[in-house]
């Protein structure tokens, strides 16, 4: 791993230069890509559904408590739940959660391949190891992320509906009016654009930390931790920047 921050930034861009090239063999690339779609995307679906369902329900209850004022319309709770899901939870918070799952998985997988000389073996065969290992991961997660965001929004809204349907916190009718009131479709695009950028940050940064791991299992663990921590920080910076640019 390069020592100084300048060296690391340089090494990151040099690595990305090796990653974004035409694959040596298209058939192998598509095989890896479909494998990563399933591994990074579909296997993240259960956690996305569970978290979104509960957060949707919790947001609805909290919104109701905080808007219990006769001056505010009854649909405010549904409106707040929808806006929070669309603008922040289903893109940023979800990606912070997935940085832990997907990021640590990628960093430890590539890091283990590095320390067990599997990456050297690829290089000796004449394979562009960065391109073969990293490009399918980045493209697969970037492809799957918009889908995960849409599913998260939908499931989160269902969670809020569940509060209306199964408790007396809010009526279903008020909730449904709220989630449809003053709907701005651009917010969905805003969430998707953010999620795509965050997906790139998670996969590329985790691959970088894994690719430059050295030593033994301890270093792979460190690489995995660094990947998650740095990805999370960079996601928050990117969130601020994109919000300023897009809203």
């Amino acid at each position, binding site marked *: 791993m390069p020592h100084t921050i300048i060296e690391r930034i340089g090494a990151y861009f040099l690595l990305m230069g090796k990653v974004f090239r035409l694959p040596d063999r298209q058939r192998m690339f598509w095989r890896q890509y479909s494998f990563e779609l399933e591994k990074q995307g579909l296997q993240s679906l259960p956690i996305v559904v569970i978290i979104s369902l509960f957060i949707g329900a919790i947001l609805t209850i909290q919104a109701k408590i905080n808007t219990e004022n006769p001056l505010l319309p009854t649909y405010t709770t549904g409106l707040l739940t929808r806006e929070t899901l669309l603008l922040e939870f289903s893109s940023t918070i979800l990606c912070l959660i997935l940085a832990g799952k997907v990021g640590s998985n990628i960093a430890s997988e590539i890091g283990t391949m590095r320390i067990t000389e599997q990456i050297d073996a690829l290089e000796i065969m*004449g394979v*562009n190891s960065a391109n073969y290992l990293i490009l399918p991961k980045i493209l697969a997660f970037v492809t799957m992320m918009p889908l995960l965001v849409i599913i998260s929004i939908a499931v989160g809204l269902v969670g809020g509906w569940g509060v209306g349907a199964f408790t007396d916190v809010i009526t279903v009718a008020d909730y449904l009016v709220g989630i449809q009131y003053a709907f701005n479709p651009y917010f969905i695009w805003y969430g998707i654009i953010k999620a795509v950028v965050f997906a790139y940050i998670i996969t590329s940064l985790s691959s970088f930390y894994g690719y430059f791991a050295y030593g033994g299992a301890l270093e792979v663990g460190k690489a995995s931790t660094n990947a998650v921590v740095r990805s999370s920080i960079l996601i928050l910076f990117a969130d601020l920047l994109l919000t300023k640019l897009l809203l």
Partner: protein
Amino acid sequence: MIHVNDIVKQFDGNTVLDHISTELYDGKVNMIIGQSGSGKTVLMKSLIGLHRPDQGDILYDQRSFIAMNEKDIRNLRREMGMLFQGSALFDSLNVIDNVRFPMEMFSHMTEDEMETRARYCLQRVNLPEHVFRLMPGEISGGQQKRVAIARAIVLEPKYLFCDEPNSGLDPRTSLVIDQLIHELTQELGICTVVNSHDMNSIMEIGDNIIFLKNGKKEWQGNREDIFHTSNEALEDFVFASNLYKKVKQAHTKHFQA
């Protein structure tokens, strides 16, 4: 044939390879030997292009490594096979898919042709049929080494590099791996380079032995020459154990008789 011409390699001002020149022959097992820290691994990594020498050149059948660009180096590497110390099999692929991998990446063979070739190579390294579909973690260390050899030879390389092929293996399995490397070298007429400090291997299969000490080439010869050498550093290294001292004494007596 590989010509190493006066190569120098430094790390942070420390000279690890100090003006090394040698020739590595086709159809022979060329062994790089020496104590830990003598520069064996750096020389091996320089030969396979993982390190670029600071000075000097390496010629692969008259093709200069220094003059090669990234694409040329990758093309050259397709003529190389490598057996790593830890086998370096891909965890996510089973045994036969590990052997098929170089063919899938670089050849234009059909599925059937790849399958047939992979099976032939696995049978050539004496692996039983029932391990073909197992994952690398499910087979023994010796079997992993054989799979790695099969993968290294599947595209019929011109150069075969073996980094401590007997590391972690029992003496009997080590002997099997040594014999396999020797047989394949002669059968395919390839230039095999073995990095080792295992005396059994050196005396068993070393056709051309290069002894390194402190980054310099101290001695070069074959396994017969070792018994008659007057090089003190080599004697210290080779005959460090009492067993090999006795072997040398017996050999000298026999030679004199």
